[in-house]
């Protein structure tokens, strides 16, 4: 591990005065990015709120066709991955490279698990015809169910995409952790990846009740 002594440590970019300035700058940058993500998903939550206000009976009728068991499993998976991610960041902060690598790998594993469960849910719905409006072909649900299911696919699809991006980012961080880039002096990339991952989990915490549970 590169000793962080000396005047110009390896990871410090030239335009920063100190590692502390660089760390706080990148954390602020990450939080601004998260603020932007909150508003990005906020938009689709407002869409959900509006459509639910306009079509209460559709949402009542249609969400019965979502598989609550699968949703609950996914929630647990994501919360666990959030834990392993947080432990990974903590390990990086305490110079425990082996544990960092392990935790990151676990997080990626859980993320993939989440996507697999998602795959089963989607394939079932596509098979039965509960898909987006233009190709919606299921009958027998009151109101205009295509709205609920298109919204379901839009929201969970967007979230799934973010999980996928999360996996790619975490894999890159894992690779760098294995190379020994991180130490208690320089763990910002792991921390930022962690922040991003926790936000993805945060969004699912709201998605799950809104889509699967609420009566």
């Amino acid at each position, binding site marked *: 591990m590169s000793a962080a002594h000396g005047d110009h440590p390896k990871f410090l970019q030239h335009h920063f005065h100190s590692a502390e300035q660089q760390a706080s700058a990148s954390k*602020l940058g990450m939080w601004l990015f998260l603020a932007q993500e909150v508003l990005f998903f906020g938009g689709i939550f407002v869409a959900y709120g509006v459509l639910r206000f306009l079509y209460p009976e559709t949402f009542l009728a249609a969400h019965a066709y979502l598989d609550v068991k699968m949703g609950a499993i996914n929630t647990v998976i994501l919360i666990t991955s959030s834990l392993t991610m947080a432990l990974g960041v903590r390990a990086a902060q305490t110079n425990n490279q082996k544990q960092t690598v392990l935790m990151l790998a676990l997080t990626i594993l859980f993320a993939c698990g989440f996507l697999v469960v998602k795959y089963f849910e989607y394939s079932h719905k596509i098979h039965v015809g509960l898909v987006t409006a233009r190709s919606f072909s299921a009958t027998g649900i009151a109101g205009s169910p295509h709205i609920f299911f298109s919204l379901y696919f839009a929201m969970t699809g967007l979230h799934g995409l973010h999980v996928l991006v999360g996996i790619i980012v975490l894999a890159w961080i894992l690779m760098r952790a294995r190379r020994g880039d991180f130490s208690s002096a320089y763990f910002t990339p792991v921390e930022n990846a962690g922040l991003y991952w926790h936000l993805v989990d945060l969004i699912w915490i709201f998605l799950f009740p809104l889509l699967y549970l609420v009566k």
Partner: protein
Amino acid sequence: MATVTTANGHASEHHEVGSNYLNARKGVLSWLFTLDHKRIGVMYLAGTLFFFMIGGILALLVRTELLTPAGDLFQGDTYNRVFTLHGAIMVFIFIIPSVPAALGNFVLPLMLGTKDVAFPRINLLSFWIWMLGTAFLLYSIIAGSVDTGWTFYTPYSSDPQVGSQAGSAIIWALMGVFILGFSSILTGVNFITTVHKMRAPGMTWTKMPLFIWGIYATAVIQVLATPVLAITLLLLTIERTLGIGIFDPALGGDPVLFQHFFWFYSHPAVYIMILPGMAIISELVTVHSKKNIFGYKPIAYSSMAIAIISFLVWGHHMFTSGQSELASTVFSALTFAVAVPTAIKVFSWVATLYKGSISLNTPMLYCLSFLFLFTIGGLTGLFCSTLATDIHIHDTYFVVAHFHYVMMGGTVIAFLGGLHHWWPKMTGRWYNENWGRFAAALVFIGFNVTFFSQFVLGSQGMPRRYHTYHSASPDLKAIFTKWHQVSTVGSYILAAGLFITLFYLLHSLFRGKKVAEKNPWGAKSLEWLTETPPIEHNFHEEPVCLHGPYDYDEISPDGQGAGADEDDDSPLYLDKKTEAKKAEEPKAEEKKAEEKKAEEPKAEEKKAEEKKAEEKKAEEPKAEAKKAEAKKAEETKAEEKKAEAKAEAKSDDEADKDKK
């Protein structure tokens, strides 16, 4: 003068004499993969100005079509496609990135006294994403070209059966704008972090130049508003392809809901456009009148206030759209709230001129022209926010004139003023002052003729986005034809003024006189401490900020303004021109050659764009302003009183102009 002390032991790399950010590295790749905020700023400048020219040409086509009531220049949808492209290119490709990304990227780190922005790689990524977004939008032209207007209202944009037949072009355009939005977010994140974390030692928030405040407020809006545009465009794309039932009434959606989503971003976006313009004006007004800004805190805080309130007022675009009456009332009231900080700023700028020493060089002419045009733009906004009058003028040419006065009369004129102000620092070359003033005059007259006539068109009832107006009743058609012709002639004058600016600025790049001194305008912000053009790492030693940004030497407690000190008759701004020149060096040629090679022809017309920028910026000295006013006075009988008041001031200015 700020005393420069070595802030810390950083060994500043050895720089051979005469090397600067332009010639420090060679070759196309050194430009395309640069991490230097100055080079990224120049590339943004080149790209955005090139598309300003494209958008401008499209505008000329639109104006030419409207010369005659019948639709003779374009048939069928072509006109709709041309005005949609004009809108989309001007809004998304040019005006949103132009000031923050081009001038902001170049000047912000210099003003803060740092070596670079917080995240140089993200800065470059932002430029690359801007190019990718532009490529998408341009490809949409080939794929059938969008004809929905830059607002993409549903169900016209979302339902192929009833709406636009532009097929996949809409998807390309939506994705293009989605990507451009992302570039805007990255710039915003970069600037906020830089301002927070990387100010020079000693530079507290109230010692920062007001330019930084303006760009900071813009960055806040960019970060918070653009994601909602992203989700809106994404939902619209899904609505058009897979169908959701949120915007498209055929599937159960509500078009007014789309307007809420769209304008939640687009109104803050118009503040993303004007706040950087205001930021530049705060600098120009002080530097060129050598006087401390009048009311630093009110201006700084009103920038932030505008940024926040801009999120509360979007409904005033939808007064006639079937929005509920309660919502319209709430939005109308809040829109008046946003007018107050804007008014404070304009009054403060005018008050800054009091007892100053105002030099009428080209940047200052653009600044004064901004005050003139933005005042009209701002005041006509009152008609649009008052409920009863907006019903009459909504979606007519009155609104077109209003937002052109604010966006073009405001942001673009300020952008050209800023470009001339920082041109010596950016390129190390002087532009021709007289050509600058002449082009400024042309732009000022052309602008007023073009758009003031559209106010009349609009209040007489001429709807917006009309390909032809021959179906109107005879007397209405006669009025429309007359004012459309006036407006089109004005647009030709405006275009002429802009092209002249383009030419003399390009000329200055090659054969402009070298700028000898570091601080040609005698300004006090930190970017004038480093060489002209700046070295690659901006400062040899990191500057320490010991005083406010506007503490000019000329300011003295008992100073009564210009002429108080009669002993020296050589005016400050003339000194520079007559100074001995530094040895000619082909730096500028080399840079241009590389750029020409570096960027593919479309993005690489750097010179073309700069010339276009200059020509747009060329502003007429006060005399012309008064002549334009006088000319307008004939049209608006109500202002005769003002014209006479100006007449006598015009005469001595006339003399002054002949003397030069």
